[in-house]
C-alpha cells in the first residue's frame, strides 16, 4: 500500500500536473495566436486605397498599429495598455516586442513578436519556491500575409 501511495504522490500526480499545464499553455497560445492573426488581418483596413491600383501598396502604419491594438484588446478582453480585464485568458500584460509591416514584399505581410506571462494552475507555491517565479513568459513570432485584392 505504501508503494501504491508513493506511486500516486510522486509519479502520477506530478505527471498529470505537467501534462495539464502543458495542455493549458498550448491552448492559451493557440487562442492568443488566433487573436493576433485576426488583429493583423485588420491592417488591410489601413491600406491607402489611392495607390492601390499601382504595383505596390501603401499602408498607414499608425492606423494599422491602432487597429491591431484595439482589436487585440477587444478579442482578448484587455484594457488599453494590454493588461487583462475580468475573465481574460491572459495572466498578465501582453508585450508587443516587435511589429514590422512589409507592404512592398512580393507577398505583403506583417511580422509580429509578442510575449505574455502564464501562471501555473497546480502547485503554484512549490513552483514559485523552486524557480523563484510566479509566472513564466512565453514569446512567439507570427507572420501573417495581408489579404490584398487589387
Amino acid at each position: 500500500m505504501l508503494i501504491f501511495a508513493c506511486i500516486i504522490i510522486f509519479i502520477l500526480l506530478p505527471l498529470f500536473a505537467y501534462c495539464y499545464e502543458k495542455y493549458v499553455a498550448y491552448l492559451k497560445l493557440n487562442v492568443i495566436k488566433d487573436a493576433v492573426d485576426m488583429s493583423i488581418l485588420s491592417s488591410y483596413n489601413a491600406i491607402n486605397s489611392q495607390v492601390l491600383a499601382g504595383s505596390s501598396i501603401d499602408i498607414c502604419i499608425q492606423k494599422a498599429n491602432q487597429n491591431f491594438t484595439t482589436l487585440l484588446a477587444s478579442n482578448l478582453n484587455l484594457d488599453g495598455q494590454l493588461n487583462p480585464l475580468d475573465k481574460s485568458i491572459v495572466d498578465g500584460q501582453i508585450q508587443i516586442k516587435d511589429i514590422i509591416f512589409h507592404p512592398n514584399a512580393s507577398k505583403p505581410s506583417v511580422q509580429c513578436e509578442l510575449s505574455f506571462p502564464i501562471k501555473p494552475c497546480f502547485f503554484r507555491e512549490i513552483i514559485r519556491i523552486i524557480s523563484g517565479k510566479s509566472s513564466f513568459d512565453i514569446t512567439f513570432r507570427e507572420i501573417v500575409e495581408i489579404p490584398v485584392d487589387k
Partner: protein
Amino acid sequence: MVDKYLYQDIPDRLVIVMIERVISTGFILVFLAAILMASVQFFVPLSVKSDFDSLCRIALIKMESEGKLTEETKASLYCGLEGRGFKDIKINGPESSQYGEMIKLVVKASYQYYSLTKIFLGEVKSLNLEFNKSCISRKIVN
C-alpha cells in the same frame, strides 16, 4: 481428482494471504482506474472549449471577408456545433456592415458531460461556453 492432490499440501494460511493479495490488488487497480478517469476528465472542458473556439473562428473568418453573418455561414456553424454535441446554441452576428467597420460574432452554447464528483460517483455537468470576438469588415459594399 487431480486438483484435490495438487492443493492438499498448501497450508490454509497461504491461501488466506493469496486471497488478501487478490482483494488488495483488485482494490488498487479499481482505485487507479478511478484516478486515471478523473484525471482524463480534467481535460474534457478544455478540449470542448478548443473545439468550440475553432468552429466559431472559421465562421468569424468567413464573416470578415463577407462583411456579415450570412445564413449559410450561420447554418454551417449551427450544424457543426450540433454535430459535436453542443446544445442551446445561440448565434448572433451583423446582417450587414460597411467596409472597415468593426463587427462582432457572439456564440453561446452549452455542453453536457459526465464527470466524477467523488472517487466512485459521477454526475452530468453542464458547461456554458461563449465566443465573443471582433474583426474588421473587409467587404467593399458598392
